[in-house]
């Protein structure tokens, strides 16, 4: 079995598992972790497909796309985390005010 097929299959499984994980997560930080893993799976598919060339050298265009993709994915993670942090604060505060559980809305 050639190398890229191995990693492409791995990418498909990773995206599926992490995608489902992101949908069913009940807590925002865990959801973010799964979304990030799904990103990595997508990148893996790109890089694996870049490897189909007959010469040993890989196609550089998908590599460049993935390179920028990783940096964008970490920015989206950082943004989501900073918004989540505010959300957690806000729900904690309203929970203290109205004595309702902060997680009721989440679940």
């Amino acid at each position, binding site marked *: 079995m050639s190398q*890229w097929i191995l990693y492409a299959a791995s990418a498909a499984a990773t995206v599926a598992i992490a995608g*489902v994980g992101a949908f069913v997560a009940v807590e925002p930080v865990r959801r973010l972790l799964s979304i990030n893993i799904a990103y990595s799976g997508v990148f893996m598919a790109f890089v694996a497909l870049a490897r189909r060339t007959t010469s040993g050298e890989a196609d550089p265009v998908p590599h460049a796309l993935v390179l920028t993709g990783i940096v964008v994915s970490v920015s989206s993670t950082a943004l989501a985390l*900073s918004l989540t942090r505010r959300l957690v604060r806000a729900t904690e505060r309203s929970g203290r005010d109205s004595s309702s559980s902060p997680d009721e809305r989440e679940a």
Partner: protein
Amino acid sequence: MTFDWLLDATVAAALPLVAWTVARSVALSRAIVLFIAFGLLSALAWTRLGAIDVALVEASVGAGLSGALVMSALSWANLDEATVARRSVIARAFVAAAIALCLGAVLLGVPDPSEGLLGDVSANLGDAGVHQPITAVLMSYRGYDTLFELVVLISAALTIGAAKSARLEARPGSDLLRALADALLPLCIVLSAYFLWRGSNAPGGAFQGGAVLAGGVLVSTLAERLRRPRLTVWWIRAALVLGPASFLLVGMPRFVEGAPFLEYGPQSASRAIFAIELGSLVTIALVLASFFPGVGPLETAPDASSERTRGHR
């Protein structure tokens, strides 16, 4: 042949497995550490697939910045494990398997030996001004893409700044930490310059150099040797837009003469790309470094009332 295949198979099998355990983790700390393990495995996968440039970025962004970012979530996230009690797993496994089969069928259905754009990239490398194909793609062939990516990064940094997160409360620092940060930061600066310089011939470039520099700043921030870059200071704002600005400045002269925008011309391409890479490195490093919330002793008035008025202003 044999061990190479075994190594690839182990990495390829471990990736979905770790993804599964992250999704199934009840304790947040467990999910986070497994997530860091996933980053490491994917860096190995990039290396195995010959994507050294990608592995360099993954190593500095994944192991350094992302790890620290998600780890900082432990200090404020809802750690109540009762809310994430395990539920039935069979339906989810079935859905995941179905998606995986569909995706796998699509991915494995593509024509096998395929050159992609490798031929086009190599054929035009002579005019690009650099010898490293990935740098040529990023800075020359797909210059628009990189220019607007930098804009996306800047807007992310500005949005995070606008969220005005309070500093994270840290335990008192120690001399040990300060010594560590002081040893690492100069090394990171040197390595960042090294990757920038190397980028025209070998894996490296603005993204790798920027990520390494941001990692050094992050360590110093965590050790309270540096403050998080404040995006309200005018010269930091000016440095923040250095990347897009250098793209525009370098692309403009030829544009005025009637050439397509961002066409550098074969004579000056090498210098043009270096100038753009230098500007982009500053932008990328600054943006990545500003993602991490400030660290320090608890601020004086973090109570609800002052927080609320600040939020509505």
